[in-house]
């Protein structure tokens, strides 16, 4: 049974993505009999390339993926290099993991309200410092080159990359490396960058690639913060797929294929940058310079991460205020009155979406965790190195959702599978599984094998050793992986809406539907509910091990 796990996982992830891509490729080259497309043609591509502003859309998608990832990575690496395990550093780390749980759309709404000319920051300084009685008419959000979009993406990418790095770090024994470097006279930050960082990067490379793929094709954040004349490629694709003029589907499909190309190009470009940086820093790593840049790097390392976390929190505070606000207009810093009206009106509509969200999240994450554990345990028992084929696990993270989900609907309908809860759960599994694997695999592999040897030598069977030794030892990372999986599931919009035909309502689908009405007070309510759920997951993940009395600090974190 266990031996089938890796194959099962790969089939589960690769088949749907492949089928979905197929169903998009066909119309992209003119084959869609329902709309009278019977042969191969390049007309959809011609139509696509005739769209005004296509070049800019592609550029913004490409650039925002690379720039936001680079900035987020630098922030995380410098923080790790500069942090010395002080209470402040620990505090920042604790602050960051719940931020991972907050859905992109919620952060985007809050961030938009924070930085808009009529937003929270401008209100804090107006009219006292600025003299503005009316908001300034300047373009901040939706700027043509996507800077506000990139900033919003950074806010969300930092917690993810930090968590992934923290999970990978212990196996490098950074303290010992650093001690050695310091004994040779290196200052701490420089020492960390020269001795730990080069070994850390290969371990977080896959998460970085996943971030790039996500950022080049993100829809919800781009809708709220991104440029709109023209919008990013992914936003255009969504509007073409939903266009009343249904012959646009040909072009939409071609654009979805183009999106895949843009994402692949961004990944390639990143890979080239990796090579470049490697050769550029080769000399610096061994030049023996021990102190230069220490102070500035340490300052930036501490302040940048703190700043991005505080910004994300302030965005949430803004949303929270709005969910309670009566009339509230620029330049008032606080609402004229507070009211529970918006919460009360939403209350009765919360029950079904909450139940569905919890059900889908728990089942898909439980399935994903079981499959991942089975794969990893199989790997351990067969004494095999992680297979190269496991790269395929990340396919759903690397192929943009928008490129294959519309095709997947057609494929699923052709098989006679009707939209239902089960289908939505299966769809979520596609995205939850890779993240659970990503957060669990390294910790699992590096668990000291002597524990299990001791157990076996005491006459315990393999499966008993798994259940009674390995799982309890891995409880904390297991729960963290579970919480990450839950957060991923709760945040899914397109898969839920498309695979469930809108019948399966979750907190996220309701929030997006309401967001189209642009009522910021209600958006505040739903975004907070949406953010609150995964937060509960993280609090449980952090608190449960203590409740269960497993204080085994030095084992696995």
């Amino acid at each position, binding site marked *: 049974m266990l031996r089938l796990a890796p194959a099962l996982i790969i089939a589960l992830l690769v088949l749907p993505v492949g089928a979905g891509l197929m169903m998009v490729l066909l119309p992209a080259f003119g084959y869609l009999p329902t709309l009278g497309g019977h042969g191969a043609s390049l007309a959809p591509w011609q139509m696509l390339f005739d769209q005004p502003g296509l070049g800019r859309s592609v550029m913004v998608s490409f650039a925002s993926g690379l720039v936001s990832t680079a900035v987020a990575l630098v922030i995380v690496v410098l923080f790790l290099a500069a942090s010395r395990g002080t209470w402040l550093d620990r505090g920042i780390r604790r602050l960051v993991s719940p931020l991972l749980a907050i859905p992109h759309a919620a952060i985007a709404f809050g961030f938009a309200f924070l930085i808009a000319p009529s937003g929270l920051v401008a209100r804090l300084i107006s009219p006292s410092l600025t003299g503005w009685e009316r908001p300034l*008419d300047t*373009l901040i959000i939706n*700027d*043509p080159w996507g800077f506000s979009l990139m900033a919003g993406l950074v806010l969300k990418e930092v917690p993810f990359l930090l968590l992934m790095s923290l999970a990978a770090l212990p196996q490098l024994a950074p303290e010992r490396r650093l001690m050695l470097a310091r004994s040779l006279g290196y200052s701490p930050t420089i020492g960390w960058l020269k001795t730990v960082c080069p070994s850390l990067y290969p371990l977080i490379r896959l998460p970085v690639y996943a971030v790039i793929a996500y950022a080049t094709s993100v829809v919800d954040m781009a809708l709220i913060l991104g440029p709109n*004349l023209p919008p990013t490629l992914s936003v255009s694709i969504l509007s073409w797929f939903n266009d*009343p003029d249904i012959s646009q589907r040909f072009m939409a499909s071609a654009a979805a294929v183009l999106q895949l190309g843009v994402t692949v190009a961004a990944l390639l470009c990143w890979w080239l940058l990796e090579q470049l940086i490697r050769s550029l820093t080769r000399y610096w790593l061994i030049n023996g310079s021990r102190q230069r840049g220490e102070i500035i790097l340490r300052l930036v390392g501490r302040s940048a991460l703190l700043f991005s976390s505080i910004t994300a929190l302030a965005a949430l505070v803004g949303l929270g205020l709005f969910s309670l606000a009566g009339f509230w207009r620029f330049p008032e810093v606080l609402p004229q009155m507070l009211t529970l009206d918006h919460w009360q009106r939403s209350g009765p509509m919360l029950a079904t979406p909450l139940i569905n969200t919890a059900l889908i999240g728990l089942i898909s994450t439980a399935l994903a965790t079981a499959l991942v554990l089975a794969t990893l345990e199989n790997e351990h028992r067969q004494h095999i190195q992680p297979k190269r084929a496991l790269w395929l696990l990340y396919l759903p993270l690397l192929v943009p959702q928008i490129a294959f989900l519309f095709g997947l609907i057609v494929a699923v309908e052709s098989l006679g599978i009707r939209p239902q809860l089960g289908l939505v759960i299966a769809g979520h599994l596609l995205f939850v599984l890779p993240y659970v694997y990503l957060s669990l695999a390294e910790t699992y592999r590096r668990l000291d094998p002597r524990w299990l040897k001791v157990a076996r030598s005491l006459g315990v069977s393999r499966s008993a050793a798994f259940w009674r030794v390995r799982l309890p030892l891995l409880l904390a990372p297991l729960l963290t992986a579970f919480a990450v999986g839950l957060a991923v599931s709760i945040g899914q919009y397109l898969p839920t809406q498309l695979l469930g035909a*809108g*019948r399966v309502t979750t907190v996220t689908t309701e929030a997006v539907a309401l967001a189209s009405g642009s009522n910021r007070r209600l958006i505040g309510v739903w975004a907070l509910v949406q953010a609150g759920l995964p937060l509960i997951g993280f609090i449980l993940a952090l608190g449960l091990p203590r409740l269960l009395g497993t204080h085994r600090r030095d084992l696995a974190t």
Partner: protein
Amino acid sequence: MPTRHPLRLAIAITMLAFTVPASANPDPSDWQSVVAQAEGQTVYWNAWGGDTRTNRYIDWVAKQMQAQYDVEVEHVKLDDTGSAVARVLAEKQAGNNDDGSIDLIWINGENFAAMRESDLLFGPFAESLPHFALTNATDNPEVVTDFTLPTEGYESPWGKAQITFYYDSAQTETPPQDMQALLAWAKDNPGQFSYPRIPDFTGSTFLKQALIELTDQEKALYQPVSESDFEAVTEPLWAYLDALHPHLWRSGRAFPDSGPNLRTLMSDGEISLAFSFYPTDAAVAVMEYELPESVRSYVLEGGTLGNVHFVAIPYNSPHKAGAMVLANFLLSPEAQAQKQSLAMWGDRSVLDIEQLDAETQTLFEQGDRHPSELPADALSNTLPEPHPSWMTALQNAWLERYGVN
């Protein structure tokens, strides 16, 4: 029939028998059997879900349907009606012709035209609904016409919308009454007005509104766009927009992404003149603390574009009987009166109220007018919607001109 050969007749009848699908569609003219067939069905009604008042009304409808007809109504909340059209299309592409996931769609205009053209709708059924007669379609042709296209019974009227402007009377005393005045006003109040980015529905409607007023070939708009010289007809519009854009919010370098987003900008104090497709929008927003009490609504002097919105049944709906019973209930005086009351939703009725009996008419009496609401007679001057092909042509031309900043 040109030939009466018995064999041919027999073949014809047999073939006819075979064309009737296994799950026969209900016959709208036999209403009793439709109601009987509907019992126990669950109707998935796909409707835009961006407004809590609309959602609350649909919730009320669902309760009534359960109690009165034993039909369960599930509101599938959409952020964009186009996604429902895309869904039906995907189902057809996959060969799912009798077990679709959508039973009723809230629809009009472009989406309706597109679905009709691709044979994605069931019908005709609308004119067989018992309550349809109350709309008095002979005197109110707008209930059987959607963007100049005859509905031919493929969609049933539900409510009425009309472009309504609103402004903050604390900041503006005399709001502009026509397009030229709007340009002058925008010059005096730079950055205080905008319209949603094309291809948004409300934004496209603003283009049509401006075009009707500015062009001297108004008649051409009510024919397919291919029958006229697009450049000549729309020339005045582009000249007007070229002049207007530098004075818009963000100097026309960005546009709000949707109609409701205009309201948010007004609420933030970024703009002080806006418009909506829902005449009661401003009043409702004041009631929900979004807009200041100084907001007032009005309609342009020359009238504004208005249209009727409908509900339609996809060709592959498995619950057509239930969907028809629902469409009929939506036309009942009870449901229409509830919909019109500002406390519930505030969407205008499609019934010919003066034709109703006196007792039923009292259902539609409103209480005191909200100060931010339109005066009662303001909506008498309604301009009809142009042919749907104009919408697409205008959108493409706009994107061509202003789509890249």
